């Protein structure tokens, strides 16, 4: 067999996670379908199924949106009801798309999809320009700390591919977005997802635009600095004690590096005790390593015999990590049952499980106008608010803007076990 596919190149690809935000009719599903279709990520049997379904529904062309159609309920109602994940790869990168719905009531899904994303695609319908939903989506992307925003101005075909339409929407977007995030990496691309202009192939209809297709941007956005590489952070996830003859006294701290670079010989501080120690080895099944960085899963061993377990943190000796029971956080409420002030919730932060009491709601945010409503203490599903809470044991944290892993938390309703809120520590 003649080798045509290079495993070496495949093994050298990076991973980019991105999320898509748009209103119901902005053509989001069509855009994802277009990316998958034009990057040849659709298999023949999938294509056949979609062709059949398109004809059945009386459509003349292949309905690209059907590629991302998930559950039966959605097929029946024609709406996306939850986060779905899609995959495709080009010779440069592998991509994970968190496909989230754009309805107002589904803010929680967008927050979920955004929580792990390197990049967000914000879709704007060229006919409508920047609308209230654009504000909401952009604000959520900023709140969740997504490092790169790609604004796709879609349906340019319906506006005769005119440059002034694109320029005017771009200006409108920048005016409001710069208030939310002045230093954000922001890119603008005029596209037609339906016709394929500037998605994977450069458009012949818009010669005035020369800054690259959407796929080109997705393939080249620099992502290596998206983690906090400065502050050493290692939440202990699990203690490995083989209790075998060969590893009789072995005690390793398993976890995923949440920040900074770790090396054998590094002086570290163990929290919450504050005891200093030194890393003796970074162990893996394939052998010891000379360096570990985010997001690697490794096992650290320490020089000293310290009482250390799940939920504790190994950090650098530099000050910075905060240790406190009093937490201020922006939260997105995700449950039908409203937030209870003075209510008690289970709280998960990194690998640490504690309980907390909600002490105060500082304000609820109108995410369309960014107005802080101080009088409103009633937090309902999909609301975004700043709150104060107190935990039963101290959290070991950074601000979310410094580190998305050590700065995030979730609240869990202890009676239903449901995850009710996503929190970003201020």
């Amino acid at each position, binding site marked *: 067999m003649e080798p045509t596919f290079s495993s070496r190149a495949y*093994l050298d690809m990076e991973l980019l996670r991105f999320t898509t935000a748009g209103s119901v009719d902005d053509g989001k599903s069509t855009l994802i379908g277009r990316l998958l279709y034009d990057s040849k990520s659709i298999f023949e*049997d999938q294509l056949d199924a979609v062709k059949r379904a398109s004809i059945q529904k009386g459509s003349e062309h292949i309905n690209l949106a059907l590629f991302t159609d998930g559950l039966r309920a959605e097929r029946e109602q024609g709406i996306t*009801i939850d986060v779905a994940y899609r995959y495709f790869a080009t010779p440069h990168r592998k991509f994970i798309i968190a496909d989230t719905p754009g309805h107002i009531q589904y803010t929680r899904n967008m927050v979920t999809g955004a929580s*792990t994303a390197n990049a967000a695609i914000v879709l704007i319908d060229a006919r409508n320009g920047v609308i209230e939903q654009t504000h909401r989506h952009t604000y959520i992307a900023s709140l969740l700390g997504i490092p790169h925003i790609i604004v796709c101005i879609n349906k340019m075909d319906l506006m005769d591919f005119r440059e002034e339409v694109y320029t005017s929407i771009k200006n409108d977007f920048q005016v409001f977005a710069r208030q939310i995030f002045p230093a954000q990496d922001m890119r603008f691309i005029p596209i037609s997802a339906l016709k394929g202009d500037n998605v994977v192939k450069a458009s012949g209809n818009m010669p005035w635009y020369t800054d690259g297709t959407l796929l080109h941007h997705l393939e080249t956005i620099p992502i290596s600095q998206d983690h906090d590489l400065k502050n050493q952070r290692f939440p202990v996830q699990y203690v490995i004690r083989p209790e075998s003859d060969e590893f009789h006294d072995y005690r390793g701290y398993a976890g995923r590096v949440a920040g900074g670079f770790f090396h054998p010989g590094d002086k570290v501080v163990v929290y919450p005790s504050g005891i200093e120690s030194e890393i003796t080895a970074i162990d893996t099944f394939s052998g010891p390593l000379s360096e570990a960085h*985010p997001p*690697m*899963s490794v096992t650290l061993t320490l020089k000293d015999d310290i009482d250390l377990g799940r939920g504790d943190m190994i950090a650098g000796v530099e000050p910075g990590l905060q240790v406190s029971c009093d937490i201020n956080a922006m939260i997105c409420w995700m449950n039908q049952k409203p937030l209870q002030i003075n209510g008690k919730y289970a709280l998960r932060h990194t690998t640490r499980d504690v309980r907390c009491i909600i002490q105060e709601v500082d304000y609820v945010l109108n995410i369309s106008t960014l107005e802080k409503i101080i009088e409103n203490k009633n937090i309902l599903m999909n609301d975004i608010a700043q709150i104060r809470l107190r935990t039963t044991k101290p959290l070991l944290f950074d601000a979310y803007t410094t580190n998305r892993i050590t700065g995030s938390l979730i609240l869990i309703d202890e009676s239903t076990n*449901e*995850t009710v809120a996503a929190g970003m520590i201020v």
Partner: protein
Amino acid sequence: MGDYHLTHLKELESEAIYVLREVAAQFERPVLLFSGGKDSIVLVHLSRKAFYPAMIPFPLLHIDTGHNFTETIEFRDRLARSVNARLLVGSVQESINNGRAVEEKGINASRNVLQTVTLLDTIEAHKFDAAIGGARRDEEKARAKERFFSHRDEFGQWDPKNQRPELWYMFNGKKRMGEHFRVFPISNWTEMDVWQYILAEHIDLPSIYFTHERDVFYRDGVWLATAPFMEMKPKEKVQYRKVRCRTVGDISCTGLTLSTADTVEDIIQEIAATRVTERGGRYDDKRSEAAMEDRKKEGYF
């Protein structure tokens, strides 16, 4: 502060190891669902990595339909011995014998659906609170919405409309008595990722993944293996062909591919050139467009 580069496969490996360690930390009685297929073999490999130098802290569970390829069963026993893991086997034949499951009749009869009964009974009997599986979101559209930690009620059922939001990498494994979780550490892997990982890590596979000659017959666009329990239609003819399995399930539903690929490298070239999805050869998914979604709700893998 330096720059770094982590390849996508290393990142997926790290993610899977993290998920496996969360299972060991959050649950009292986890179990790894071992099908004999490549995805669950990769899971065993990842589990060794996650807990090294300790042993894998959970047993392997195989739901045996009694209609498996001999090669799968031999491989299963050998692998469990080599990694020193406890192997449990749930028998679909026993479920049929004691009346818990009813054998399907007719030409397309399969024990694939019956596995759900045996699986749920075994989980209940051993009081397992987390069952780790090798499902991937790229396999099938109902799976695209699956969480890493997927909650199941006391009847073992999945409610796709009422899933817990999964934020960052914080997995909420809290549950009531009698409920359990399905956990999918390789959710974000594609078929190609799995094969590349097998190649890079030199992972052993059952011989049926590679080309071999056997008696097969052709039905509705799929090649199937002959076996005493496989009923054939009058017009279907037995042929002796060079085939391999692209996925491994029980004989009644595993579609075979005409292939001469006899190394992992060959298979990778074949997949790169193939334009049909992996489950395209799965006879069980052809029953209806929403077949997988229905089975998942009932508690299938």
